[in-house]
């Protein structure tokens, strides 16, 4: 049985209940045995009902007096005894019940029950978020703006209380439980058809993998956003078809590569993440010698991504134990020393180094490395990694050229992949493009639309675009151009650029306007608000669709004629 709270109450109330029954029975038997006397002085025996009635009101300390007749002394002696006896029995029972209500197990059971009710009452799309921290709370707020509900599972009671204090509206149900336990996933409604995704962004790779495997086995239709911090784990996650893999070190390394090779690509990515406008300044990163402090998971990814590029890399790592894990090739580029030491920096030729990358996992050390390097070489380009960033960043005041904040990157990547899956596919497809491609696209976007275009995703299905869907079902040829049509004048074009078309898993980057549409196509547009509203009208409104397709106004009259055919 699922409802354990009732059983806990029943189980714990056994002893008090028996005490009450036994005290009642003894008292009643005593009253039945002892002779009483009626009004006229005749001997009289109490009936069972009289005795039960008397004990009932005496035991509960109500005390109506002596019924049916005044008691004799022998009865009074017994009743005195009974009063202590039964009242203590009652108090014991009531006390046991009160302490039971404060029982931790019972309270937990009741809150689990309440959680399940709350989850079942969600009638919209929702996602399950595992672990409540800065990143996930930001994700929660963001998805809430898009009218998607969230359910949180958190192990730490203090963090759970933080969520409760945030007072989100609509309520975010929270369960204090271990995310490893599949029962908590069940309670959080993973089998529910409304459940769209599970977000697991723990630092512990094993835990993330456990969650991923279990979630996929329980419900394979649910999308998973899982964090990974090594290539090995990323492969494991790919093997079980995880939809969104957030490997922040890989993303950071790729961003670094983009910043060096194709800064405009990075700018496009930032625009899609809604961090920057397209007109933002592109800092130039000089090529040459780079000094990277820290050779852990991030350092390894950077080495892997940048070793074939046109830059000279040298790493400084403080922990000498890591030497065992390095191969011959890596040993040539890694020095084991304290990067914060002035002498070490001078020795690694800091004066001729173009950029210093303070990428250790310690904020203070990173700041200190930057400060030392700047003193030795004022021209140097600085990049730093900031761990555990909250709303306020101390690094923002440190005048650093490039700041890498893992928690922000995790947030951007996850939220983009959850809410705008096509834009996420677009980003991952353009990572390897050239700078010229990026510059051209940026210029085109700014010229045709503006410096901060809206991103609009469309799927050609029954719900999102019923008119196009019907037309395609009827074998009417519709080309992509229809979405550029201005509804004010069919011969004019709206400010819109198609970025990506996905058809049966195949990706068409920057598709041509003449491409013929097919059912279930998914298209990503960059446009302004006017164009977006026109596209939505074309998709949903039968008159506007007809006008955009043929230039004719669909007439009501002809509609009637069709009806009577």
């Amino acid at each position, binding site marked *: 049985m699922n409802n354990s709270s009732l*059983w806990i109450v029943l189980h*714990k109330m056994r002893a008090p209940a028996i005490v009450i029954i036994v005290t009642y029975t003894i008292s009643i038997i005593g009253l039945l045995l002892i002779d009483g006397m009626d009004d006229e002085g005749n001997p009289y025996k109490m009936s069972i*009902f009289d005795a039960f009635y008397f004990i009932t009101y005496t035991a509960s300390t109500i005390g109506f007096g002596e019924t049916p007749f005044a008691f004799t002394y022998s009865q009074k002696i017994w009743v005195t005894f009974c009063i202590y006896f039964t009242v203590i029995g009652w108090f014991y029972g009531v006390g046991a019940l009160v302490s039971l209500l404060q029982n931790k197990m019972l309270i937990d059971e009741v809150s689990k029950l309440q959680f399940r009710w709350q989850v079942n009452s969600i009638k919209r799309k929702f996602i399950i978020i595992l672990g409540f921290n800065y990143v996930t709370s930001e994700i929660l707020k963001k998805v809430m703006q898009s009218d998607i509900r969230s359910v949180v599972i958190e192990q730490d009671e203090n963090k759970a209380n933080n969520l409760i204090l945030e007072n989100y509206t609509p309520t975010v149900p929270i369960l204090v439980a271990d995310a490893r336990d599949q029962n908590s996933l069940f309670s959080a409604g993973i089998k529910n058809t409304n459940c769209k995704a599970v977000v697991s962004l723990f630092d512990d790779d094993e835990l993330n993998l456990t969650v991923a495997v279990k979630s996929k086995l329980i419900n394979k239709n649910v999308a998973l956003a899982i964090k990974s911090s090594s290539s090995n784990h990323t492969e494991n996650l790919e093997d079980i078809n995880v939809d969104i893999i957030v490997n922040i070190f890989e993303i950071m390394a790729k961003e670094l590569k983009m910043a060096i090779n194709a800064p405009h690509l990075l700018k496009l990515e930032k625009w899609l993440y809604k961090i920057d406008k397209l007109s933002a300044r592109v800092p130039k990163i000089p090529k040459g010698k780079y000094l990277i402090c820290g050779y852990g998971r991030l350092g390894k990814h950077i080495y892997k991504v940048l070793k074939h590029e046109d830059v000279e890399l040298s790493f400084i790592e403080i922990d000498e134990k890591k030497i065992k894990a390095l191969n011959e090739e890596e040993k040539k580029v890694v020095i084991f020393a304290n990067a914060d030491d002035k002498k070490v920096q001078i020795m690694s030729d800091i004066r001729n180094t173009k950029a210093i990358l303070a990428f250790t996992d310690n904020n203070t050390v990173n700041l200190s490395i930057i400060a030392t390097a700047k003193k030795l070489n004022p021209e140097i380009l600085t990049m730093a990694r900031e761990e555990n960033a909250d709303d306020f960043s101390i690094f923002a005041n440190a005048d650093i050229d490039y700041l890498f904040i893992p928690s922000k990157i995790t947030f951007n990547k996850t939220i983009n992949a959850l809410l705008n899956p096509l834009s996420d596919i677009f980003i991952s497809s353009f990572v390897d493009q050239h700078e010229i491609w990026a510059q051209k696209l940026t210029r085109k976007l700014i010229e045709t639309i503006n410096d901060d275009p809206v991103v609009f995703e469309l799927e050609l299905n029954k719900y999102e675009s019923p008119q196009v869907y019907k037309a395609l079902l009827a074998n009417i040829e519709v080309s992509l151009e229809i979405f550029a049509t201005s509804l004010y004048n069919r011969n004019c074009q709206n400010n819109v650029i198609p970025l990506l078309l996905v058809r049966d898993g195949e990706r068409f980057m920057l598709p041509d306007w003449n491409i013929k549409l097919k059912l279930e196509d998914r298209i990503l547009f960059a446009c302004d608000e006017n164009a977006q509203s026109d596209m939505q009208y074309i998709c949903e409104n039968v008159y506007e669709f007809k006008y955009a397709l043929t230039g004719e106004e669909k007439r009501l009259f002809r509609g009637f004629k069709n009806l009577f055919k």
Partner: protein
Amino acid sequence: MNLDKVIAGFFIILAMTINFGFFYGEMDSLETHSKYELFAAIIINVIATTLKLGDKTQIGSVLLATSLVADIQLISAALIWTVSEYAYTIDVEIASIIISLSGGALLANITSVALYVGETVRSKR
């Protein structure tokens, strides 16, 4: 030997035997049926019910159900007896209602004992 099992078994079987003690006799007159025996049967039955509370197993739930049936029948027999004693007269009809109610309770108690014995036989410890 498990003391809990001894106590539970004791009350479950005692509930049945006392119930039988009350039920045994003429079917249409209360002369051969003692009210004290009915009182004792109710008390023992209620105790047996409490002992079965909180057992989450399948057999535990069925045992609890049979016990609840016996309780309801015996308590309603006592209620009818009390009401008719004080507010009405006890005729043959009332007497036979009381006795047949306790007969129903006896059946429930027999089921309960049968299940209990069956479970004990199945248990390997």
